[in-house]
């Protein structure tokens, strides 16, 4: 690692989107922060800026964050034009100031998409994702009815593929990056996780139809294979999931929601 004893610190210029709650218009506001260490995270820099603002009697910049280690999906901002910043495979909270040099300018704005209303400053509402999950992002099994864990064998490869899809953190970067504001990557991750597993088999047709219908109803756009979603996804969810989702959909649309006899694991 680079020498942490060099505590000089960088000066960074920021252009940050400010928008009052429910106000129709927002705007960029310029700020300058200094003494920024390279081990600091981008969000820690915002914390410091917010402290300065509060001391001056100004309102702090609102942004969402919780785990600050890339797993909860709460944070989510467009950093200098890219959802979650320029490094692939990381979330906004994982951005370290090591990526920048003294005097750099960083633009920070919220995830923008019709179905993600801005609540205030950099905070957006992503409830549309929950409403899509409600339509079928589950296996209908009540507590108490499960057989022994090893009674359901799952090949390691299928389990790994399911896990790859299941790591989606529901952050919404895929939507923010898509020119059509499509939620296909997010929705396909859940559909394909459950389609890989035998547990998801009985409901796979019904699930694909219902979740996709809700995705459309929420006003997310169509997927036209731009691939921007995969590029910004912090969990590197593969766009192949979208292809799998389409197959699930076509099969279900063809045979009817509950006619699919496949037990999953394909």
């Amino acid at each position, binding site marked *: *690692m680079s020498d*942490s004893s060099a505590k000089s610190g960088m000066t960074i210029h920021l252009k940050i989107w400010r928008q009052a*709650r429910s106000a129709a218009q927002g705007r960029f506001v310029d700020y300058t922060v200094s003494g920024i260490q390279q*081990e*600091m995270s981008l969000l*820690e820099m915002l*914390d*410091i800026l917010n*402290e300065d*603002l*509060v*001391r001056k009697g*100004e309102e*702090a910049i*609102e942004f*969402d*964050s*919780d*785990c*600050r*280690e*890339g*797993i*909860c999906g*709460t944070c989510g901002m467009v950093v200098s034009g890219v959802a979650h910043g320029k490094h692939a495979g*990381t979330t906004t909270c*994982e951005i*370290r100031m090591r990526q920048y040099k003294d005097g750099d300018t960083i633009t920070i704005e919220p995830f923008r998409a019709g179905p993600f209303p801005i609540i*205030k400053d950099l*905070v957006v*509402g992503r*409830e549309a994702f*929950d409403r899509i*999950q*409600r339509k079928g*992002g*589950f*296996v209908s*099994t009540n*507590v108490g*009815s*499960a*057989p*022994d*864990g*090893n009674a*359901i*064998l*799952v*090949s*390691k490869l299928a*389990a790994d593929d*399911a*896990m790859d899809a*299941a*790591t989606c*953190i529901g952050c919404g970067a895929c939507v923010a990056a898509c020119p059509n504001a499509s939620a296909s990557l997010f929705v396909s991750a859940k559909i394909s*996780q459950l389609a890989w597993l035998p*547990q*998801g088999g009985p409901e796979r047709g019904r699930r694909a139809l219902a979740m996709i219908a809700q995705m459309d109803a929420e006003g997310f756009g169509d997927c036209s294979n731009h691939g921007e979603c995969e590029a910004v996804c912090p969990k590197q969810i593969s766009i192949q999931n979208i292809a799998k989702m389409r197959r699930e959909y076509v099969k279900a649309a063809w045979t009817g929601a509950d006619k699919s006899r496949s037990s999953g694991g394909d």
Partner: protein
Amino acid sequence: MTTGNRVLDAKIPGGPLADKWDRHEMENPLVAPGGNRRKLTVIVVGTGLAGGGAAATLGELGYNVLNFCIQDTPRRAHSVAAQGGINAAKNYQNDGDSVQRLFYDTIKGGDYRSREANVYRLAQLSTGIIDQSVAMGVPFAREYGGALSNRSFGGVQVSRTFYARGQTGQQLLLGVYSALVRQIEAGTVKMFPRHEMLDLVVVDGRARGIIARELTTGEIKRFAADAVVLATGGYSPVFYLSTNAVNCNATAIWRAHRRGALFSNPCYTQIHPTAVPQMGDYQSKLTLMSESLRNDGRVWVPKKPGDKRRPNEIPESDRDYYLERRYPAFGNLVPRDIAARAAKVESDLGKSAYFSPQSVYLDFAEAIGRLGKGVVGDRYGNLFDMYREIIGDSPYDTPMMIYPAPHYTMGGLWVDYNLQGTIEGLFVAGEANFSDHGANRLGASALMQGLADGYFVVPRVVASYLANAKASTVKADHDGFKAVEDESRTHIQRLLAIKGKRTVRDMHWELGRTMWDKVGMARNAGGLKEAIAEIGKLRESFWHDLALTGGADDLNKQLEQANRLCDYLELGELMARDALMREESCGGHFREEHQTPEGEALRDDANFAFVSAWEYTGPGREPVMHKEPLAFENVELKTRSYK
């Protein structure tokens, strides 16, 4: 200190240990399905494994559930961050595991300060959790034959931990979330995201509801119910820097405490041995590196104090693998409290990684030599990547640097066997209660407790409470609600009216310093008394010097954090008082006055085999401590040894 004489009846069912829960299930009354259940409302605060599991399951049973969380969606509850795994006594590895052994390991791991009956039930329920999670589509790691995989975790000699790469908590929580959205869609659960509980409403001695603030609008609302379940997680951020998410808080349990719920063992906190070391005072949290790393990583420091050479320049002969040296039987896999304290002992002697006086090495060179880079990468790749993002170098080539960090709180609200607190109708589940881990929690056991409480215990005990209690006639328009709502509003206004000069973060940082230095990994009477005085002063300063901007009718995270900090400023003091009272060392509570000549913890079973249960007596007044004696009928109290 005043000791009270309330008799705390844990309501442990009679009969042999192994039969207690079944018997209890048989003897408990039930509510018939259908209309009767729909008319009964249960508030569940929290959507982690405990709260989300309970809300979904109560919904499946047909109750009318109101479920709350701070985050914008239930899927982000802090359980999502758990990495390493979840224990269950499945004995799939045929290595001698059993319910009895899991029970014994947990009692011993907790340093004989937990309740036998609760721990036994936890071990019994553990197996059903795995079954349920698999059925929901949780993608646990598997072997080529298709069976579930296991790994081992600290403090035990069997392999009973189930995992989903390094994201076990996320996957289990997404399982809970899927059950929850299914019930939301079915109309049995009503979800209130971005709602923070500010207070508990108690009318005629019974919990009747809560007051919550909608965080986006600032609106303060009343919610009435027939029972209230708190599953709001732990309070590690009382140390400011911890491995917890930045919004974790004690507000819900602390306000319930102020309304009469006794608070147990507040001083039992777990300092996790393997986190990325602290870097600077700008920091907002510490990042955990899963305990599973100790399966293959070897912990060491340079033999010579002050050795500032880079780790790869230090030859084997100049390294001290102190855990392997001191604990040959368990080596790098000793329980957390022991591994954490050992790191402190070394660094106090001036032996540390070059990076800072508070860091030690965790080295994978031997594992990479033995297993190859590929296998090590499969096991820990995502953790290594995370580490590299933060520190800047790669654990594949350079030993990792780690140091202990506040991580988990074993203390919490007192509950009986039915998870009911000392207020009737108030139930507490998951990390928020005190019940299962004694003075130290074993790795991979919090997820187990969260889901045992959520899926199995809460639904049963709340149902039988509701079967006995008559439907509540107290509605949200009752005067009791109005009074508490007014208090909540005044409290928020008071915070905004202080108009001082210090930020919330600045004051929280100061509280954290005191807690870490004096109520942290090693404690002594002098330090604890200083801590009590310092926290008292800081609390006064808080009410004069706090700087806040923005209003109460809007999203205002500074205000949210200030509101949480004022509870931490009271809880921190109680933790110090509890630690001062407990004149022994046990588990995560280490009093320097009470140790063996080799520096191991010295328990005092004759005088301290009890649960402390603190009563709030009013602002600025000394709390009163009550005791629940611990009876051990099935295990023999022994000195914990991992040598």
